[in-house]
């Protein structure tokens, strides 16, 4: 016990004497979580809070153009612009403005679009009442041009196109029914009411985010991003951890310790305990930042009430997994460069396949099956279950156990490799 206390004292001193490194251990993860959450929150808002810049050129002075414009404005999806540099644009101007990235989407409603629809309805009615069902539609379709910035993400592009199509279809059907009513009233002796009255929706859907325990959780960018990026940041401790081990090995102080009454395992236990405290403090500070600082910055507050114990258990398990991984890299790598390059890239890969950036359900089948071997995936599932699905400790304990087993496996590999190096190097 005395030996472990002395080793902890040494590791603690080595850690706190490198003040720049220590500050980075806390500041950089907090900055990462803050920046990523803010960015994601802004993306979230940009879809929901008039963030998408749309340049609209409405050449139709009648009801179709007016109604589409009104629908788009009412949707709150878009910030609608009608002028470019104070001038009414031409169709070419709209195209160029979108191509140059000044607007994410451009829309040109052609002149006389409403009249074309009316003519088409009238033509169809003529055919209908003449009994000529085989007659072809003799009028051109109405083309509303949508110009889309190629830099816009596919998912966003699909959402925009879908929304605009929906508005246009709604307006078009309204006009068609109006015209149909008018034609019927003109042609038949018995007047009919506006057919649009029939079009009242009878099938509705209601959405609700459900969580365990009959609790409703409203997801937001903070609840989703803070656990993901916290986990990612915690795993980055692998790099300074492995580097400190290699430095100790290179300067001979590890060899000196190994000639004293302490084993490699004891030396590792001391490091695990010291870095576990660091990781846990990182976690606590990031959680505090989510709870206290985020609302100040206009972000939603992180809701952790009632989950502190399960979150802490998951944080400790994740920290041990990260440290165990660091020990194996620090033992096996021969140089700082090897450790730094392998550790940083492998953590990014584990994060990518673990679902930190792209949700696992959106991955190709191969990656979906690989993702289950990433400790970051276990940690992420645990944190999401707690923070988004209202899970308790018993529900997530399996993820914690997997991370502990991963840590243990890394430690065994490190001890085995150390022994191998003593015998074979």
């Amino acid at each position, binding site marked *: 016990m*005395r030996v472990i206390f*002395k080793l902890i004292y040494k590791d603690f001193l080595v850690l706190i004497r490198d003040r720049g490194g220590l500050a980075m251990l806390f500041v950089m993860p907090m900055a990462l979580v803050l920046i990523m959450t803010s960015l994601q929150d802004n993306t979230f808002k940009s879809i929901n809070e008039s963030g998408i810049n749309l340049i609209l050129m409405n050449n139709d002075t009648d009801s179709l153009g007016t109604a589409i414009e009104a629908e788009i404005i009412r949707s709150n999806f878009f910030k609608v612009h009608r002028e470019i540099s104070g001038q009414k644009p031409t169709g070419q101007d709209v195209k160029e403005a979108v191509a140059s990235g000044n607007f994410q989407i451009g829309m040109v409603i052609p002149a006389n679009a409403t009249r074309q629809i009316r003519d088409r309805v009238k033509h169809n009615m003529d055919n209908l009442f003449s009994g000529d069902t085989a007659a072809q539609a003799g009028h051109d379709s109405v083309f509303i041009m949508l110009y889309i910035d190629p830099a816009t993400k596919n998912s966003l592009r699909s959402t925009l196109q879908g929304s605009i199509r929906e508005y246009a279809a709604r307006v078009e059907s309204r006009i068609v029914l109006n015209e149909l009513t008018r034609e019927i009233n003109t042609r038949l002796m018995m007047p009919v009411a506006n057919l649009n009255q029939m079009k009242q929706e009878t099938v509705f859907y209601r959405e609700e985010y459900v969580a365990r325990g009959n609790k409703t959780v409203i997801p937001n960018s903070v609840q989703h991003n803070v656990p993901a990026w916290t986990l990612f940041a915690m795993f980055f401790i692998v790099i300074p951890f492995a580097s400190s081990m290699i430095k100790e090995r290179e*300067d*001979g102080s590890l060899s*000196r310790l190994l*000639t*004293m009454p302490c084993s490699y395992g004891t030396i590792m236990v001391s490091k695990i305990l010291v870095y576990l405290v660091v990781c846990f403090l990182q976690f606590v500070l990031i959680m505090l930042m989510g709870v206290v600082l985020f609302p100040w910055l206009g972000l939603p507050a992180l809701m952790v009430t009632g989950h502190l114990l399960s979150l802490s258990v998951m944080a400790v398990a994740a920290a041990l997994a990260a440290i165990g991984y660091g020990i194996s890299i620090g033992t096996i790598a021969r140089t700082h460069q090897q450790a730094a390059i392998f550790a940083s890239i492998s953590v990014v890969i584990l994060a990518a396949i673990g679902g930190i950036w792209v949700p696992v359900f959106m991955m190709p089948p191969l990656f979906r099956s690989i993702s289950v071997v990433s400790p970051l995936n276990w940690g992420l599932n645990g944190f999401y279950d707690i923070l988004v699905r209202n899970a308790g400790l018993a529900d997530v304990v399996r993820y914690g156990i997997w991370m502990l087993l991963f840590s243990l496996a890394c430690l065994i590999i490190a001890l085995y490799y150390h022994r191998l190096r003593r015998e074979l190097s």
Partner: protein
Amino acid sequence: MKGDTAIKIRDLTRVYRGNSKPAVDKVNMDIPESLIFGLLGPNGAGKTTMIRILCGLLAPTAGEVTIGGFSLRHDLPSIRRIIGVVPQEIALYPSLTARENLTVFGGICGLNGSELRNRIDKWLNIFGLEKNQHRQVGRYSGGMKRRLNLIAGLLHNPQILFLDEPTVGVDVQSKKVIIDNLMEINRGGTTIVYTSHYLEEAENLCSYLAIIDEGRIITRGTLHEIRKENNTESDLENIFIKLTGKDLRD
């Protein structure tokens, strides 16, 4: 100590991975207790490998070693309790002060409380480091680091002290303090195993010598015995050159 022989070495062999030639090749040797044993040899002769095996840092490929009566293969933890090691490199934590380094190493070796404090004070005073004891070791001069490196190995008063070139790169004053104190420690009963390139220093310090080359012990004994064996009255340097040749070594 369980017997009169501090270290027994039998057929000790070490082959590094990828090398067909052994770095230490079937060495047999007894090192009596309470003397200063000098292990000399040119670069790459196998001195450091021998010391690293005896300290438990490297496992032997073959052979048996007993240190203080404990088998190196089966009872390494017991050996670690009775030895002290001063490695060739400055094996200290540069961001810790001298006192903090010694507190850590002394504590791991079983010292604590006032005993630890008193020993640290004593050795810092002997090696002239008491004024700088609260400075971080990274800011020490080469000689100061070398002296502190030595204190870290002998602070717990080991029965057997291994020194791998302890005076490399130090000034004459530091060297004298180190040598004088090693003799003093030895007078207290500590067996010292010492490697060096400084043959004159070894001649003055060591009561028993062995010259190793290409992993094999090519001569051993007191200086008198070595001279007699090689039919010469010349100094150690001439005997060394005669035995190991004039070729440059890597």
